[in-house]
């Protein structure tokens, strides 16, 4: 394994947060999540996602991207500001047009039908490998669940899926894999940046390097135990 030089994984795993960021309404999509897919399409690495993450994203997207406040408060403000002479009638009209567009876009983009369409499109993307939970993954979920590790059932399923997938990828010839993981529960460090020992070891044993974003920066050093 390369040491002291810049390396990138040739296989990358992602989870629900990535799916959500890719199928978000257009104006809220994460550029780096989209770029990751484009980089996979350009052949930089292979991209994998557990199928259960697509199912979770279907529920998450409408909840996460519903505006914190509808435009009603802003409409009331503009009405008041126009009446008080703080904005001109033309400015108020322009604002109302923007609110109408925004409300229309939100109502349209966050419907279950629209979200499902975008998910189906993503699932069929030629550069994304969607894999189902296999029997060994379900078995691993049980064994990890017995460890002293507090994870929600869904996170446990994702963890088991990426661990077993990483083992499979190594059998296919990959030295190690990257895992872009934005969910702090599945990151192998705690809020102070210190190692979560059990989780760290689980990833380390199957040569998964966890990234906290979708940028997939070069790494200059890999764990020593991966050199053999």
């Amino acid at each position: 394994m390369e040491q002291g030089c810049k390396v990138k994984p040739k296989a990358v795993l992602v989870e629900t947060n990535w799916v959500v960021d890719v199928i978000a309404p257009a104006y809220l999509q994460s550029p780096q999540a989209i770029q990751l897919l484009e980089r996979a399409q350009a052949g930089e690495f292979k991209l994998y996602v557990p199928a259960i993450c697509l199912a979770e994203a279907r529920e998450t997207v409408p909840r996460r991207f519903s505006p914190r406040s509808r435009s009603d408060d802003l409409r009331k403000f503009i009405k008041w500001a126009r009446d008080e002479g703080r904005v001109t009638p033309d400015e108020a009209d322009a604002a109302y047009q923007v609110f109408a567009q925004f409300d229309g876009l939100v109502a349209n983009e966050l419907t279950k039908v629209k979200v499902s369409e975008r998910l189906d499109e993503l699932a069929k993307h030629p550069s994304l490998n969607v894999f189902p939970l296999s029997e060994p993954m379900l078995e691993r979920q049980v064994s990890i669940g017995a460890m002293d590790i507090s994870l929600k059932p869904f996170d446990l399923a994702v963890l088991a899926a990426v661990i077993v997938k990483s083992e499979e990828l190594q059998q296919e010839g990959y030295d190690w894999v990257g895992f872009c993981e934005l969910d702090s529960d599945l990151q192998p460090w705690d809020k102070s940046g210190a190692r979560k020992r059990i989780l760290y070891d689980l990833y380390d044993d199957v040569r998964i390097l966890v990234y906290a974003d979708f940028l997939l920066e070069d790494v200059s050093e890999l764990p020593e135990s991966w050199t053999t």
Partner: protein
Amino acid sequence: MMKTSQPDIIVTSPDGEYLIIVEVKLKDISISVKNAIEQLKHTMASIGCSVGLVVAGDRVIFLRDSLEKYNGESIYVVGEAKLPHYLLPSADEQWKGNPAIEFESQVQRWLEKLKLTASMENFPSDLRNLLSESIMSLLQIGEVRAGGPRWSKVAR
């Protein structure tokens, strides 16, 4: 092209959205602060975060993206203030002996304390004005975390 680096401290919403990102430098050295501001701007644009703080020694610089333009072109420095050392809690024990990481830990604990107490009572007026409602309200709804593993920085 500038490399996007992992922020030192992040404040995220319950949905994982980046609310504030923080770049920490142990010392207030002109060139290093300038680089930190450019680095923070780049990271803010890359990860889609509209509020950033640079903490360099006893200096806090507040950056905001008005989102009027793409690629971070609308990020501007809102202002800066002094962060007196007496306001900083002690660092997490595990980082003792590594001054840069210790300082990061102190800044993180300061933000956590600010979130918990929601009080700027003993703050100098310039710092109170700088942080004002916008930073405080984001701290209230978010969780303060390390931007990534600190052990890897120690190992380097």
